[in-house]
């Protein structure tokens, strides 16, 4: 037990990786148990992540050194520098890790029934595990080059998964191609920024770079490259065009994980702004850039969503729009970062709202994509014009859809309302106009989900869907688990904010606590 705890950060990466390599062997032995095997592995990963979360959220960041007992190397001159790859997990990292663990576990469970008609499942599951590995790595790593490697692992795995269903039609391949091009650009720009850091400071460890950061011209260039490409990977307007393509063409279980993957990029964006640069950068400029990206994402995302006819494209545009809320909340936090009074009065609250929204969004958007997948599983179409009256036959799916839609539209008592309320009220003190736009977007969100609910579930039974049955139990379980989380978070948002979100926000803001763990430990 204690040895599991000591090696927990490595095991979270290592178990999915080992399982990914073992999947071909398992599939040769027995094709039926493949999905259960993957679900068990990811369930175990979820368990380890929960154990780590209990420890880290009480204020003990975890450091794990790969390949040696010490991170650092002391030169004969007495200069100490961390050279090994380390995992540095603080409250923010484990917050994202929890999202990844929950989402990938439920995605695997959902896949058992959802993908059973497809061939080549051993590749599907191996890639799913690799995607989970890449996301965990992005969130846990304390080494900026290692971050690039995991970013590429995650994007290559997700491209292959997006294009997985291209044996029937060409669209998944097209979406995969587009996603591959944009994610290659982003990864290469990240690598270029890594080169800029390494050229100046001769270290790759993020905490060490942060402690010697001087914000030279080269650092500015690196910051711009990183902010742009990571905002793009998170799907902010006007670089969001890959999002609807990729989200709509991937299998529903993968879309849910892709949402979490783009939030891992969002996490990296915040990590770089807060932990790497913090107040050395021009906080007001960068803050307003993030806020404006957020506003554009919110507004254009939701207005484009209203006119969509494809259910998953519509939800994908909502994912863009909800990303805007997170950017808005955290952007306000960045803008007042150098101003301790404003940070204390509303900056921290705004960031709590933004970060809490990440968690909420992963849960309800995951649930919505899963219900869209359930509709696709039974009807074989994603076109809303061809649906209707499905509420008669798929009552549980309809209920889960209502929960998800109410949460995303910010209807009390679900979790989306809690985080949106925090964002409205704290952003109002920064600039009332931003808050008003955010509320307007929320209304439009409700409007477009009323449209989906009306055209898919309401109305009389249609002739071609007369014999449609409820989806299998494993799919219902995944949806039900997410719905439970949404309701619980909605009823007790204070506990979540106090024990999970607030430590995460403080871990971001306190740069000195981030660097001290590495520099003090050497």
């Amino acid at each position, binding site marked *: 037990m204690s040895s599991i705890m000591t090696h927990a950060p490595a095991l979270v990466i290592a178990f999915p990786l080992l399982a990914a390599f073992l999947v071909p062997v398992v599939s040769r032995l027995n094709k039926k148990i493949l999905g259960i095997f993957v679900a068990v592995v990811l369930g175990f990963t979820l368990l380890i992540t929960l154990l780590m979360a209990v420890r880290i959220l009480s204020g003990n960041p975890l450091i794990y050194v790969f390949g040696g007992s010490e991170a650092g190397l002391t030169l004969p001159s007495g200069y100490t520098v961390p050279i090994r790859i380390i995992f540095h997990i603080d409250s923010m990292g484990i917050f994202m890790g929890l999202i990844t663990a929950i989402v990938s576990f439920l995605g695997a469970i959902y896949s058992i029934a959802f993908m059973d008609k497809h061939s080549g499942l051993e590749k599907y599951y191996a890639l799913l595990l690799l995607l989970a590995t890449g996301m965990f790595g992005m969130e846990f790593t304390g080494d900026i080059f290692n971050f690039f490697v995991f970013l590429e692992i995650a994007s290559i795995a997700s491209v292959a998964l997006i*294009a997985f269903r291209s044996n029937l039609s060409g669209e998944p*391949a097209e979406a995969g191609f587009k996603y591959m091009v944009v994610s290659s650009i982003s990864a290469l720009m990240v690598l270029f920024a890594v080169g800029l850091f*390494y050229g100046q400071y001769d270290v790759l460890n993020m905490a060490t770079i942060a402690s010697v950061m001087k914000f030279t011209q080269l650092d500015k260039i690196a910051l711009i490259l990183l902010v742009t490409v990571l905002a793009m990977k998170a799907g902010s307007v006007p670089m969001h065009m890959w999002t609807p393509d990729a989200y709509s063409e991937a299998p529903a279980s993968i879309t849910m994980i892709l949402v979490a993957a783009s939030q891992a990029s969002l996490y990296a964006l915040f990590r770089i702004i807060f932990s790497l640069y913090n107040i050395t950068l021009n906080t007001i400029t960068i803050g307003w850039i993030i806020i404006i990206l957020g506003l554009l994402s919110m507004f254009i995302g939701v207005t484009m969503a209203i006119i969509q006819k494809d259910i998953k494209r519509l939800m994908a545009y909502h994912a863009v729009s909800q990303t805007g809320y997170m950017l808005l909340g955290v952007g306000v936090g960045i803008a007042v970062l150098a101003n301790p009074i404003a940070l204390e009065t509303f900056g921290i609250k705004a960031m709590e709202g933004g970060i809490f929204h990440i968690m909420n969004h992963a849960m309800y958007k995951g649930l919505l994509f899963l219900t869209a997948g359930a509709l696709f599983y039974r009807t074989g179409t994603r076109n809303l014009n061809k649906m209707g009256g499905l509420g008669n036959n798929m009552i549980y799916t309809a209920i889960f859809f209502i929960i998800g839609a109410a949460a995303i539209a910010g209807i009390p008592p679900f979790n989306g309302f809690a985080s949106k309320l925090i964002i409205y009220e704290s952003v109002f003190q920064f600039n009332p106009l931003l808050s008003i736009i955010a509320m307007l977007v929320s209304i439009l969100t409700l409007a477009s989900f009323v449209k989906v609910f009306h055209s898919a579930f309401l109305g009389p039974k249609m002739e071609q869907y007369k014999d449609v049955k409820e989806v299998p139990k494993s799919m219902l379980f995944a949806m039900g688990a997410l719905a439970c989380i949404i309701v619980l978070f909605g009823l007790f948002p204070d506990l979540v904010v106090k024990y999970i979100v607030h430590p995460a926000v403080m871990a971001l803001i306190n740069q000195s606590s981030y660097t001290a763990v590495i520099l003090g430990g050497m």
Partner: protein
Amino acid sequence: MIGNFPYLAVALLIGLGIYTLIYKRNLIKIAIGITLIENGVNLFLITLGYRKGAIAPIFTQAPEGLKMVLPTPQALTLTSIVIGVATTALILSVAMIIFKKYGTLDTDEVRRLKE
């Protein structure tokens, strides 16, 4: 001045790659554009580690007292090359599927997903 030539080459390669990505309308050429950017970034990393008059950092062939070039950027470059190979292979396979299904490689026609 002569020491800055590699950086000029880096800028040229990345610029050409970006030009290819934006203006070339063939999927294979876009793959080439990505490879160009990747090579530019790799050249940048390698150049960072170069020291004038230094030797290759091989443990068993290093005479005492001579400077070595930095091995870390070479390790980074190697990793990035490996990843780049995977990316290129994947992107070309996807382009192949697109050609099979659409019968064209023109970006203007490969856009059934829009709006």
